[in-house]
């Protein structure tokens, strides 16, 4: 029998993990149309949502004008400014929304993480890789990494477009941007893990798609992405206050727009970190039991 050279176990772990991740990423970056579409999508959302929902304009003097009272322009303007600042923490709703959009794109891309496991199972590819000695955890983490990388690339595009479309740059800093992306990374990693977890036993993509569709808008609307949570009914506030999406957005708005945070940056990061690590651990542990042919 020939003497075989084998990689050390850590090198093997990294190699197999990256090979699996890169295999999924290739389907994206090797197809120019798909790559362009996935980058255009956030631009469209940002353009449509960001510019269509111009809340700031509602409170400008041209919108509110009660002719009988003949209120002076300055009064109307200061009422508008006051309202905007108290509600959104800034008078610039587009910038407020742009940060929400960062989390929005990360959330939607991460939620698709489970779909490729379902497809792999359907086409027998999963059986093939399960018959190799690769760790079941690597298979799961590769799926999570794949959607995390995709969503962060899309988030970069959203941020650049948002700035080009007029997002406030007054408070931007390299450190702030990096920390914001750290928060988005944690959000994406946790959400990707959650949806991989839901897909571990799933055999058909329709039901997985149903789960994604059932959860995507609730997760988005029960957060502060579009609107501050303080105007929500208390039951919705309760949901929004544990929704990881809100935490990532709070961090982003604080670091990029200098909107005050009710707790502290550290607290928000701690929560996101626990969310990401907790769900990923559960996914990896359950993959040993549940990931079967």
């Amino acid at each position: 029998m020939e003497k075989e050279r084998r990689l050390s176990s850590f090198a093997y772990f990294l190699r197999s993990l990256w090979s699996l991740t890169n295999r999924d990423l290739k389907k994206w970056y090797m197809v120019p149309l798909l790559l362009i579409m996935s980058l255009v999508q956030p631009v469209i959302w940002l353009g449509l949502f960001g510019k269509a929902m111009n809340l700031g304009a509602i409170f400008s003097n041209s919108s509110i004008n009660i002719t009988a009272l003949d209120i002076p322009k300055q009064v109307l303007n200061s009422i508008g400014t006051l309202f905007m600042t108290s509600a959104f923490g800034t008078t610039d709703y587009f910038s407020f929304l742009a940060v929400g959009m960062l989390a929005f794109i990360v959330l939607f891309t991460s939620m698709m993480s489970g779909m490729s496991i379902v497809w792999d199972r359907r086409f027998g590819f999963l059986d093939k890789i399960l018959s190799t000695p690769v760790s079941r955890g690597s298979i799961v983490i590769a799926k999570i990494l794949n959607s995390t990388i995709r969503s962060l690339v899309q988030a970069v595009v959203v941020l650049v477009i948002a700035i080009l479309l007029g997002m406030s740059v007054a408070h931007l800093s390299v450190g702030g941007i990096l920390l914001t992306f750290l928060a988005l990374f944690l959000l994406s990693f946790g959400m990707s893990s959650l949806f991989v977890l839901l897909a571990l036993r799933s055999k058909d993509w329709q039901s997985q798609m149903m789960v994604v569709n059932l959860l995507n808008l609730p997760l988005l609307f029960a957060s502060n992405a579009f609107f501050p949570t303080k105007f929500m009914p208390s039951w919705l506030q309760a949901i929004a206050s544990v929704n990881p999406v809100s935490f990532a957005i709070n961090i982003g708005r604080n670091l990029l727009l200098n909107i005050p945070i009710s707790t502290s940056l550290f607290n928000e990061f701690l929560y996101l970190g626990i969310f990401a690590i907790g769900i990923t651990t559960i996914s990896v542990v359950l993959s040993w039991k549940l990931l079967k042919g």
Partner: protein
Amino acid sequence: MQNKVIDVNALSKSFKSLKAVDGISFSVYEGEIFGFLGPNGAGKTTTIKMLTTLIPPSSGEAVILGHSITKEANTVRSMIGVVPQEYTADEDLSGYDNMLLIADLYGLPRSESKKRIADLLSVVELSKAAKRKVSTYSGGMRRRLELAIGLINHPKVLFLDEPTLGLDVQTRTVVWRYIQEMKRRYKMTLFLTTHYLEEADSLCDRIAIIDHGKIIKIGTPDELKQSIGGDIIELSIKNSDSKVLNRIKSTQGVLEAKKINDYYRIKTRKSEELAPKLISMLSKNGYTVDRLSLKKPSLDEVYLDYTGRSLRDEESSGEDVAAMRRTIRMSRA
């Protein structure tokens, strides 16, 4: 005695109320081609999935190359190769990238992987198509690629689940030529499932007939054929009379003889040896043999004899049929 490569002991698998595999036991020896023959839904694929550690058995145990499939699954995985029933290669990647990915999952160093991939691709004659996307491959090419992928870790035991399903006869022959070439090169033991009788007959050293999750009979193709009563000689005699039948019956080697219409039907163990004896005995007694034919019992008869049917497509589960149709569709594309 040869080494046992696969040793299966009372292996069972139940899916809810369905007993897919019901306490099977058998051994496969080094260098053998061992075939599992049975209708769809008989438990062939479930057995392969258990032996290749994809699903755990409900009860029982199997040992491959001295390692338990349940307790040492990862050791077993690194030593076996699997060529599944479906086309499992990633269609969006090239054949080469597919092979490199699986090589990485086996932990082979890149330099070694490259050598093996080049070698295997040339054996299955896919070197030219290596950089093309798998979605552009024909059915035969994809089957060959699956075979090459299954061999990337130079396995000691190769599991093939319906390796020629849905391929036309010519392509089947080609695929089998590659399989035999691989077996010779890497000195492997082969375990395969099939429901093509001629395939099992011509290729397998030993066959297990499986039906309803149970092994009904194990043996070499010849043993199985003999177990249903041996060869048949049919002859007709020009100047036949009433004494002929008794003369035939008293000839050594004849197990059973009867006259049917104008010919005699004789059952025997070895038709090649008995036929000349019969002819000389008959001509010595003044009879002229008009026509004589030897009939070997085919595996077809054996199969029918033991399973009571040829195919049970209508009883197999929807998923099996769907998977098979998909495979067939893709192999024809």
